[in-house]
């Protein structure tokens, strides 16, 4: 989009070790990324096995898993703007990985909560549809289900690119619900999740202004 970005990308591509990195990314990129995405879980499990999760281990694990789920969701949403801004097309496949891991960690978040509540179904369901804090979390989770289900190439083909892209705009809905949920969590959640809220707002804003921006940038060239 900007000439200096093109220059920067060309410069990087001309580095001597670039072909090696590019080929590793091509062959193993997805596996490596998945491994990285699993690290937070491994960290929490290790903490649990060492008794390091503190006085309320399941509650702490729930918080950690929720935070990672939200982070993955934001990472997933950051890909398209990054490609648009920097022309880093190699990032595209990361989107699916981040999205699926967001769902994975959301499941762990809900499971950890179930353990925190002693698997008591009454306590788990209490307020789920009436308490805005729980309802937003529940809806965020619900919205992520069709997104995960339609994440395969096969489903993409079945739905057709246009419908698939429209459906997957729901990622933004999931993220907005999840950030609302996180901001309402805990005694001072509104303080803890300000950075995530700001990043999400910037990403949303970018998607809104990008079409106009692109047109404006293209005009001088004809």
């Amino acid at each position, binding site marked *: 989009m900007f000439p200096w970005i093109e220059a920067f990308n060309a410069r990087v591509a001309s580095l001597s070790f670039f072909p090696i990195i590019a080929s590793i990314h091509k062959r193993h990129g997805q596996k490596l990324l998945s491994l990285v995405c699993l690290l937070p879980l491994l960290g929490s499990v290790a903490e*649990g*096995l*060492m*008794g390091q*999760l*503190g*006085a*309320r*281990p*399941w*509650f702490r694990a729930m918080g950690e898993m929720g935070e990672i789920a939200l982070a993955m969701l934001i990472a997933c949403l950051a890909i398209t703007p990054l490609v648009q801004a920097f022309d880093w097309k190699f990032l595209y496949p990361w989107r699916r990985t981040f999205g699926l891991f967001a769902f994975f960690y959301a499941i762990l978040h809900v499971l950890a909560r179930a*353990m*925190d*509540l*002693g*698997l*008591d179904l009454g*306590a788990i369901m*209490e*307020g789920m549809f009436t*308490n*805005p*804090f729980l309802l937003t979390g529940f809806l965020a989770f619900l919205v992520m289900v069709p997104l995960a289900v339609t994440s395969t190439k096969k489903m993409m083909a079945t739905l057709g690119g246009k419908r698939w892209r429209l459906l997957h705009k729901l990622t933004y809905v999931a993220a907005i619900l999840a950030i609302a949920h996180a901001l*309402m*969590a*805990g*005694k*001072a959640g509104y*303080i*803890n999740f300000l950075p995530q809220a700001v990043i999400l707002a910037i990403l949303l804003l970018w998607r809104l202004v990008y079409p106009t921006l692109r047109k404006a940038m293209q005009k001088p060239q004809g």
Partner: protein
Amino acid sequence: MAGAVAGVGVSAGRASAMPAFLERLLGRGGSREGGSALPVDTQTSYEDVTTYNNFYEFGLGKGDPAKHAGRMVTRPWHVEVSGEVAHPGIYAVDDLVPPRDVVERIYRMRCVEAWSMVIPWNGVPLGDIIRRLKPTSKAKFVAFETLYDPEQMPGQKSPVLDWPYAEGLRMDEAMHPLTLISTGLYGKDLLNQNGAPLRLVVPWKYGFKNIKSIVRMHFMETRPETAWEKSAPHEYGFYANVNPDVDHPRWSQKREHRIGEFGQRPTLMFNGYGEEVASLYTGMDLARSF
């Protein structure tokens, strides 16, 4: 009343055959042992009492106070007593809370965030302290303030609350024999993260009433504003009595997680101290005066 948990039996912590990490994850279990209708109260471990804290002056994380409170200097320490009182002045801790008067009180502590502990406090009933200070007939409330010193309390550099932390009690609550000014727990001096050198303990109210590291007591005719009330008046009221029937706007107060146990247990009205304190609130709508 000294030394007793009102209402429910207490058993001291006991050894378990489980590996430590499993006991952490699955709890000590047996909370209903002995065929008691109500879960038995087991003292929370010293480790948990001193490492799982809310003390936003040292950070928002539960482990932050234990990590960062060490730098606070608690001796010498003075408390300013002012307002509607015959003996105002600046008191050293030992003069205000004489060590020879210290008793042990094992109380349940219910945090507004729906977790709870059982803590053996050492302290002096606030009523005894106040009687010596001789409040005037105009004193209807007593307000407390925590130290304000962002150098020692780095959390005060961010505007999480309107510092310094402030709390208050109605005079009859302050004079109630269960209300304690604590200087220690488990027979040891309070650690900084627990509010050294002196803090309030009001066992039938949510934990945030139990103001820590007190530097000021002010007797007044009108109701003082408290820090959490100022920050979110629809969520945290002046009374803050433990009440399973009045939910926090964002979460239920019906149950609580007793630290060290697996799962939840029912929350008791007035945290189980209703027999002693319910009469303080007769005629009041506790859903409105929450």
